[in-house]
């Protein structure tokens, strides 16, 4: 009896209208930012022509370009460190049994679950007590704190769905644990690693709540833009915001390609072929 279900699907006009409203609510603000970045005047009511001059102005702001570069650097470094720690953690949590594992898992998840303000202030207090000056290093550690669980749980979920059978098969065929890791496990979690890395980079690229606590004079882009906001919303702010939106979208599209079940089946099928 599948006909009632298929019959029900596709109707519900009120729900659909409501859904469209929520979509408008979700996308309208982003459209506004993009429109303002191309507007020669500061309003969009009576938008007269489009201009790229605000984008040209961005390139004449060396401090902004430096901040942009810093953000990329922090993102790459955070992803590199988080991938190592997170992947090791994923192997640990999915293969090693010990009492109190639930508590351990919860502690690892904390930076993800707690409000950013708590991570920010605890790290600030920690570093200042150790006499560490606020610098690129403190920002990087802040970013490592929240990107590591992201990588770890992406890899853990891939490992748990993969199951231990492939690994056992490799061992039965005489592979050493190291060979099994290099030739079986790592290729199978490769797409999860890439997806997790992209996710971690995207989150790091936009992060401000924790970074704001840990920033001295060395700034990342969101903190720099936050400083620009003190002088009001300038067209330059919209231009850099638009660039950030586009970059995020590109990263998300790549991320979608590498995470999820589709990436996994592709990988396995290719192996068999």
């Amino acid at each position: 009896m599948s006909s009632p279900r298929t019959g029900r699907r596709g109707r519900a006009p009120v729900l659909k209208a409501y859904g469209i409203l929520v979509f408008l609510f979700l996308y309208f603000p982003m459209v506004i930012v993009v429109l303002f970045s191309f507007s020669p005047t500061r309003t969009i009511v009576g938008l007269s022509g489009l201009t790229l001059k605000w984008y040209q102005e961005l390139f004449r702001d060396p401090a902004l370009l430096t901040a942009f570069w810093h953000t990329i650097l922090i993102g790459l470094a955070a992803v590199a460190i988080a991938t190592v720690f997170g992947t090791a953690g994923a192997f640990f949590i999915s293969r090693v049994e010990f009492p109190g594992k639930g508590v351990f898992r919860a502690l690892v998840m904390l930076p993800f679950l707690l409000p950013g303000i708590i991570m920010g202030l605890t790290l600030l207090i920690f570093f200042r007590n150790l006499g560490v000056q606020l610098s690129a290093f403190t920002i990087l550690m802040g970013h490592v704190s929240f990107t590591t669980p992201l990588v770890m749980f992406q890899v853990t979920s891939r490992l748990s769905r993969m199951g231990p059978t492939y690994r056992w098969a490799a061992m039965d065929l005489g592979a050493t644990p190291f060979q099994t890791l290099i030739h079986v496990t790592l290729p199978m979690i490769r797409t999860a690693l890439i997806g997790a890395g992209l996710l971690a980079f995207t989150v790091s690229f936009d992060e401000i709540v924790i970074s704001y606590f840990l920033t001295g004079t060395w700034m990342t882009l969101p903190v720099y833009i936050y400083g620009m906001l003190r002088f009001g919303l300038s067209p330059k702010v919209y231009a850099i915001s638009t660039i950030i939106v586009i970059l995020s979208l590109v990263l998300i599209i790549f991320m979608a390609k590498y995470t999820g079940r589709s990436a996994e089946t592709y990988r396995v099928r290719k192996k068999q072929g």
Partner: protein
Amino acid sequence: MARRVSSPREFLKGVPITVWMLALVVVPLAFTFVMSFYTSSGLMIDQTLSLANYKLFFTDPLYSRILFKSMRLALAISVLSIGAAFPLAYLVSFKIQRGRNLLFMLCIIPLWVSYLVRIIAWRTILGNRGVINSALLALGIIREPITVFLYNQFAIAITLTYICIPFVFIPVYTALEKIPRNLIDASNDLGANEVRTFVNVILPLALPGLVTGFIFSFIIALGDYIIPLQLGGTEGIMFGNLVWSQFGFAFNWPFGAALGFILFIIAVVILGVTARFGTTEGGFLGE
């Protein structure tokens, strides 16, 4: 199944993540806890342990009033986020056949688009020379820009709801997708109409996702300080700003540490209580 304990050599795998956890989570929390018992005297920090900060928090009604105001607002934001995200998740999961994956992506894309850009967008929309005011002026509904949109709790609520919608959508959608579709068929076959099926079958099964989404948005809204700073004005001083200001111009780190620790306890209690009902991961950390 009895839980076995792995051989000691296996625990070497846990060294990196344990180091990370101690260095960036546990020890910083411990430092904060200790500092919350110090006191601040001018620019110096007095390291004699005392309960002064906690006493100040619990005796001066100013602070608990701000905390309750923030909790009330966070509650409103959670309800609004569920009101927006739950019908959307139900629509995508149950009513859409073609293009479902694309719609799902479209619902969660805002999550990964810069938090700061989204704040800038709402300032642009709500501001005195913003989109709403310009539109109302152009339509001749008002003659002067009206200031009711920005720098109040309304501005915080709308922006944080906007931020929280994907955080509710993901766990709710994950829960809805897990509902076996033949349960719906069974309910229909037994003569239940769509409303009854929704109330008696779908809603109870979606509850863990709803609880997770609710908790996520509540904690995000309660802990946020950037949005109240940017859009709240003087009327919108929230607990997050209060904590932040102790590290900024108020320069009272020990009191800030105590306030931060109180927020930590609130978050942990909420997470602990609801971990029984929802899944804490809520489909975020898995794929």
